[in-house]
Every structure is written in C-alpha cells, then in structure tokens.
C-alpha cells in the first residue's frame, strides 16, 4: 500500500474511532448562553450545550455521513457503470445514459431537497439511499469509461487469451485498476456530499437526528454572528477544502506517476 493509502486508512479509522469514542453532547441547565471562557472556549448555546464539543461532534458526524453516502454511491455507480462498460451500447448502457441525463438535468441537491421536503423526517438509511440514488450518474459514467478503456488494455487481452473466467477478469483484474484510478473522483464526491448535506441541514430537511454540521447551522442560524455558527461554518469549509484538495492532489499524482486510465 502506498503512503497516501496508509494515510487515508489511518484517517478513516481515526474518524470512525472518534465518532464512537467522543461522548454525545449533553445540555446542562447551569451553563446557558455563556460567553467564551477558558472552560468553554467557544461559549455555550442557549440550550446549555458546550459549543466546541457540539461543533467537534457535528464535524465528525458530517464526515461519517459523507463517507457513508459516498460508499453507497460508489457501490451503486460501480455496479451500473461496470455493467454498462462491460457491454457498451447494450440496453443497460443506454438506460444508464438516459436516466443519468434526466437526473443530471434536475441536480442532486434540488431532487434531494424536494424529496425530503415531501417525505418530511426520514429514517437515516432512507436519507443515505436517496443521496446515493440521485448522485450516481456522474461516477457511473466515469466507471463505464474506465471499464471500456480497460477492456482494450494489453494485459486484459492477455488474461482473456489465457482463458480466465469473465468474473475473475472483471473482479481480479479490472476492478482493482479502476478503484485505483477512481480515488480523486471519490474525494470529489465526498466533498460534494459534505456540501449537499450542509445545505440540506441548513434548510432543516432530511433527518435532524443526525446532528451533522448542516443541522447545527440550522439550529444556530438565529444568531449568525455567534461563535458557534462561525465555528460550524468554518468546520464545514475545512471539510470541503480537505476533500477538494485530496481530489486535486490525486489528479496531479495520477497525471504524473500512474497509468492514465481515464
């Protein structure tokens, strides 16, 4: 595993551990709306929460939410893109292009917001599934392009000529190569989900029990100059920038060192 891969794995494990280990913020009646002090660095909210604790918890919750949504989208887009690329111009491929075009014309956020507005409060798994269903087309077309290209690569032709089973070729030879080349897109998708979830939360749509940064901004939007609102906005920005930066670094690295699959 490369150094970047190790850092990524450590990051993911760190976020998951922090999500499990960081205690859930609990309000206390003796610390309502306190200003920033040495005990409470960002003060407390009007409901008695420690603002810094709340922002930290919401940041980790946002990261986990975006990671879950990204993983689901990757699985869905991978299946569809892979099937489309395996049989280009087949009915799956044409249906993918058609449905993708319709979904793209509306946009993930607009569709999600409209659906959540009608459904009201949704269970958390519906929230993730809706996000994945409206966001797969872009990634699926990239995976489809990669699969079509991979089919023509000499080593794939060699394994085909060697008589390996199609499933083995697909899962052992094509898929790892695709995942390797997809890393920058995955970071971009992660970043996109952070933004979408932030905006959905800011409008109070979806599942308010998730306590991610968007819902924190929604709760604090009555006082937009409060340290809590500013800290939550800055945390959201940092998450977005991290995702975008990782994506850009991935693209540059891919251009410089790795086989150009897409």
């Amino acid at each position, binding site marked *: 595993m490369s150094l970047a891969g190790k850092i990524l794995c450590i990051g993911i494990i760190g976020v998951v551990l922090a999500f499990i280990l960081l205690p859930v913020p609990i309000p206390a009646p003796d610390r309502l709306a306190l200003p920033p002090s040495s005990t409470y660095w960002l003060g407390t909210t009007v409901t008695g929460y420690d603002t810094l604790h709340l922002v930290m918890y919401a940041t980790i919750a946002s990261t986990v939410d975006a990671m879950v949504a990204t993983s689901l989208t990757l699985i869905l887009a991978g299946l569809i893109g892979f099937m489309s690329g395996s049989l280009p111009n087949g009915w799956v491929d044409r249906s993918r292009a058609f449905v993708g*075009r*319709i979904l793209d*014309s*509306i946009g993930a956020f*607009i569709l999600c917001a*409209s659906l959540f507005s009608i459904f009201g409060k949704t269970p958390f798994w519906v929230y993730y599934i809706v996000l994945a269903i409206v966001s797969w087309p872009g990634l699926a077309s990239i995976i489809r392009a990669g699969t079509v290209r991979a089919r023509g690569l000499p080593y794939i032709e060699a394994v085909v000529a060697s008589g390996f089973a199609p499933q083995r070729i697909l899962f052992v030879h094509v898929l790892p190569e695709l995942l390797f080349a997809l890393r920058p897109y995955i970071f971009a998708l992660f970043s996109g989900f952070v933004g979408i979830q932030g905006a959905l939360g800011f409008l109070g749509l979806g599942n308010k029990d998730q306590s991610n940064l968007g819902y924190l901004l929604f709760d604090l939007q009555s006082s937009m100059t409060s340290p809590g609102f500013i800290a939550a906005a800055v945390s959201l920005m940092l998450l977005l*920038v991290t995702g975008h930066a990782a994506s850009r670094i991935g693209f540059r690295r891919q251009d410089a060192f790795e086989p150009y699959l897409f």
Partner: protein
Amino acid sequence: MFSWNNFSLQVRNSSLYLLRVAFFLVVLHGVLHAALIVTPDAASRQLGWFEIESDYANRVREQLGLSGNGTTQYINHLANLLRGDWGRSLHGNYEIGPFMATRILHSAPLLSLALLWIAFFPIPLAMSYARATSSRTLGVVRTIAAVGLIPQFLAAILGYAFYEHFFRPNVPAEFASLMRLVFASGALAVTPAMIVFVSAADTFEDVTRRPWVTVAHAMGHSWSRIRAMMVINVLYELRPLVTRVALHMFLGTAFAEMIFGIPGIGAAFISALATGDTPLLFAIVFMFGAIVLVLSGLEEREELST
C-alpha cells in the same frame, strides 16, 4: 450560397433535436410526477392528515389531481400542463403560472447581474493564470479560485454579513437596494464563476500550446488579436459547462434570494420546500429541469460542434 441539401439537413437536424427535447421533457415530467405528486400521496402524508374529514381530504385530492388512478392522474396533469395550467398552490391557493411569471421578473435583474460577474471575472483570471510564470502570481490566483469552494448558502450568508455591516450603513438609501442586488449576485456567482475559471484555466493552457498560435504570431498578428482569438476558442470549448453553471445558478439564486430577502423564483422554491407545497415545488423543479435539458440538448447539436 443557398443549397437545398444543406437546408433539408438543417431542417432534419432541428426536427430531430426538437423531438429529442420533447421526449426528454415528457420523461422528466413523468419522473417528477411520480416522485413529487403520486409517491408521497401529496398532502395527506406531508401534513400528517390521518384523522381528517373524508370530504375535505377528497376535495384536496381533487384539487391536486389525485382523484383518479395513477394513469388518469398522470395524463390529466400532462394535459393541464400542455394547456398552460400549472395548477394551484396547496398552501396559498393561488394560480401557479402567473405567480411564477411574477417571481421570475423579480429574479431577472439578479440573474442578469450574476451572468455579468460570471462572464467578466473568471476568463481574465484564467488568462492571467495560464500566462503566469511566477509562483507568487499562481498562488494569488489559486487563492482567489479557492473562494469558489464556499458552499453557496455560506457564500450568501457571508455576502449578507458584509453588506449589512460594512456597506448598508455607509451607502445612501436610494442605492441600498442596488448594493443589495450587487452583493446577492456576487454571492450567487461565486461557485459558477469558480467552475468556469477552473475549466477556462486548463483550456487556456491547452490553447496557448496549439500550433495556430505560433503560426498567427509568425504571420505578424498582434498579441491582442491572438488573445481575442484564444478567448473565442476557450469560450467555445467551455460549452459543456453550460448545464453545470445553470444548475449552480439556480441553487445560488435560491439561497441568495432567501438570505437577501429578494422575492424571486428561488425564494419561492425555498418557501415551497419549507411548506411542502408539492404543486409549486413540481412547477419550479420541472421548469428548471426543462431549461437545463434544452441547454444540454443545444450543447450536443452537430451544427454547433463543427
């Protein structure tokens, strides 16, 4: 010179394009109808009307066009739409068509101003990025571009905070609404402008290396003329961005209008989201999706890609 062959080809291509767009619009209508009108059983689910009088529930269902079976509902809805009847709002009980026309008029100045920002800000910035040789210039341009990473709702909040704290107290009252429009359009244009900038910078780098630039220079054309030709080339290459920019423009309009208090179509969308007004939500999303579909169809027209 006029040629019947060319003319018939143009007519054929245009007809095919119109047919494709019409087909996609019908499918878009079907998808949105299924997602926003039929699936949630409209008002009853949204408002939690479990123990409501059956007469009242039937009247609301009738009003929403939900009284027949699925096929009847869909065909009725499509027929009404083709007749120009967008239905009535669930909460305000007003006609949606005239309401949207009024709201679009309110949004027009904001969108026009934002388009000006997008047209005149990212292209020169991308040009300077492509021509920059010092790492300091590159760093400055990259930092400016990074501003575009701000989510649009945060950009709108930030713009509003700047406007309220620094500009509103210092500008005469008669210019206050104009300044509010300028700030709202700036906040709206941040993300689309960043999208245009990133692609334009890459395209400029590519265009400057094309052989015709060297040839034009060798032929004695002035640099200003060559740059103008490069800009035209870059704009031509940026056509596929039109739909993405349109999507972000709409989102930006919604947030900017909500936060700056401009009563346009974006604010109507946000209020429809908040109240769960399905007919209004359907009308706005369908209108917007139709615009994006027509634009994406234009991108693919063969006459434009020669």
